[in-house]
């Protein structure tokens, strides 16, 4: 058993996995796949697909996973490969970055000096040793105090800043991994469901997307009231569910849930999602005695016997019909007149004239129908969300480091030239050279002014002489 070819296989696999070409290929593949995902409707009902595709096309798309593409094995595989690629790239490059930073050469010799750009030089009177402190002071404004590496007759300085910029890319990539990790946690440990509640009802369970039901963990939720309001233009202004949370029969929280303002409790989040009319709570009616013309205005609850004040007449609202044969809303009424057999009739809200034709001693008019709403709440549990936001923060920090900072280094060399000093100064920036050249130029002019200020150094020169 030779281990050499195996090693070769592993190392070439590693090379492929950590290559930039794989990154580019995967990103392109993900982009192209996503285009298909937006063009082919996802997770629609089979009938909808049949309207667009032939049955064979549908079958092919189904087998290839294009109808639930973002969860298909090959799409997940692409994402997994991207993660492996990111990890491999990080492992193989991180060491290089660390080595680059730790072995940053603090003392440059001639060949390196020559290739340095930008670079400047300046002749100073006197020996190098006399200039050390004023050079350090002159540069401290733009770089932290440069380190002095004195040796023999030559003095070297080295300073750097923006080291962290080299790590920006790792922050971004870590961010991507953390986000995908958060998504994975949400996929395995989270769920999504809904609760539909009529005003006054209490929910103890929620319905999952697959139709299954699970209990709310240790509490129940009562819908006290649902309200919807509109702007004068007719478009909706607010949907609001007022709910009470109860634990063991005790009210513990009363909150309102609105769009953009979900309620969170015990790891579950409740979102205002839909609403509708579940029935009628009560109606405001104007009832006129046909003989005397006297009108009674009263409120009647659905299904409850309502007596007309000052008479033996009573009635029950038995049914609400949202639209009766295209004539609009109607209430079914059972009249309880002690002098006559009980009768059933419909009262139409938008057609009060129909009442004139009905026999009987009372005429009903509907002033207002107060609907009973149900509210549809979406219920989520996603323990991965905090991780997703953490990943996002990593990415943003990483972008800042990568695109808006750069690693800049500065070398200064003072060499003895007879009785005088030759000052050479050079710098490098790993990104955004043009901006660095400007910064370098400003810094050099500042240093030059500082060093050549007559008053300051004439004295030192005299001392040396």
């Amino acid at each position, binding site marked *: 058993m030779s281990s050499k070819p195996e090693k070769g296989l592993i190392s070439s696999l590693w090379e492929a996995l950590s290559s930039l070409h794989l990154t*580019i290929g995967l990103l392109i593949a993900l982009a192209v796949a996503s285009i298909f*995902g937006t063009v082919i409707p996802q997770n629609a009902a089979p009938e909808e697909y049949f309207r667009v595709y032939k049955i064979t096309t549908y079958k092919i798309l189904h087998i290839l996973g294009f109808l639930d593409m973002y969860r298909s094995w090959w799409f997940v595989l692409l994402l997994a490969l991207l993660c492996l690629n990111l990890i491999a790239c990080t492992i193989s490059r991180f060491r290089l970055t660390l080595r680059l930073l730790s072995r940053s050469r603090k003392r440059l010799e001639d060949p390196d000096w020559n290739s340095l750009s930008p670079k400047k030089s300046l002749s100073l009177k006197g020996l190098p040793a006399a200039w050390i402190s004023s050079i350090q002071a002159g540069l401290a404004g733009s770089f932290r105090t440069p380190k002095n590496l004195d040796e023999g007759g030559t003095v070297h300085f080295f300073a750097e800043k923006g080291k962290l910029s080299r790590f920006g890319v790792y922050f971004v990539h870590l961010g991507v991994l953390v986000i995908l990790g958060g998504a994975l946690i949400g996929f395995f440990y989270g769920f999504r469901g809904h609760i539909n509640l009529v005003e006054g009802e209490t929910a103890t369970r929620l319905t999952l997307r697959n139709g299954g039901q699970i209990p709310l963990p240790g509490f129940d939720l009562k819908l006290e009231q649902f309200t919807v309001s509109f702007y004068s233009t007719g478009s909706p202004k607010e949907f609001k569910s007022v709910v009470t949370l109860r634990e063991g029969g005790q009210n513990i929280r009363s909150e309102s849930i609105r769009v*953009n*303002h979900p309620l969170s409790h015990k790891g579950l989040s409740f979102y205002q999602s839909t609403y509708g009319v579940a029935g009628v709570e009560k109606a405001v009616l104007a009832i006129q005695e046909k003989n005397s013309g006297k009108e009674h205005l009263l409120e009647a609850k659905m299904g409850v016997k309502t007596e007309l004040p000052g008479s033996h007449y009573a009635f029950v609202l038995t049914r609400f019909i949202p639209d009766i044969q295209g004539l609009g809303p109607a209430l079914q009424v059972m009249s309880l007149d002690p002098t006559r057999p009980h009768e059933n009739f419909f009262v139409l809200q938008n057609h009060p004239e129909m009442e004139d034709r009905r026999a009987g001693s009372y005429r009903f008019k509907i002033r207002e129908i107060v609907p009973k709403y149900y509210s549809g709440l979406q219920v989520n549990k996603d323990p991965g969300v905090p991780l997703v936001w953490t990943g996002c923060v990593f990415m943003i920090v990483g972008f800042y480091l990568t695109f808006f900072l750069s690693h800049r280094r500065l070398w200064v060399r003072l060499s003895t030239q007879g009785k005088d000093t030759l000052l050479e100064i050079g710098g490098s920036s790993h990104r955004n050279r043009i901006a660095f050249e400007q910064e370098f130029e400003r810094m050099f002019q500042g240093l030059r002014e500082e060093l050549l200020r007559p008053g300051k150094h004439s004295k030192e020169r005299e001392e040396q002489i």
Partner: protein
Amino acid sequence: MISSKFVTAVTFLYLFSTVLYFSYLSFRSKKLGNFAFISTWVALALHTVAILSRWIESYRLGFGHAPLSNMYESLVFFSWCITFIYLLWEVKLKTRIVGAFAMPFAFLTVAYAALSPGVSDRIDPLIPALQSNWLHAHVITCFLSYASFAISCGVSVMYLVKAWREKSGQPEGTMLSLFPSLESLDTLIYKTIAVGFPLLTIGIITGSAWANYAWGAYWSWDPKETWSLITWFVYAVFLHARFTREWRGKRTAILSLIGFGAVVFTYFGVNYVLSGLHSYA
């Protein structure tokens, strides 16, 4: 509404600026260039007034909100972003020539808002889903990134024109003499994308955060979301491709064009071709 009249005026001013930049390109007179620069600043100032006056008008109507909530408002804001970011680059680069390739985007965007019958300039109150502070963060970052990408697209066109003319061996055309070198154009494409990409990322993140509050899911593969991710992938390819030597220059310029194509589809295509949750703009 007075703000709509301002927008119409801005449209003509942008057309004027665009024409001036093109004249500068063909006549190479420094005066024309300065004139174009000043005219664009004036247009941007009026554009700012137009946006602010629409904001005030919405309060007069009784449902005030920042004018960032529908197709018309987003187009007007997008155009503002293009001009604003372009002018910052012009000041920084000290070259006026890019204007001829950036200002057409600002002009066409605002012209579409002002003149298309399909885009209503009515001020509508905010529906519940839009009543969120995330709206501002999301829309502003997205359109600033789109604007950066628009400029990078313009510079890519410059790059390709110049590369093509140089390759075909024609003598330095009159127009081309003002163009920066291919290397500086390549750098500028990179820099505009280096600004746009983080902004797009923040735009997607703020959108996700908002979706998590409004729809209860930070990511639901809605066509708008997915296309913003496709755009993100394309520019991610650009940034990675640039690290490998063989992709520099022409190929990355073409990638930048494809990227902006994805931006345009994310913005318009999704609304007109595909359907989804994100139906405001």
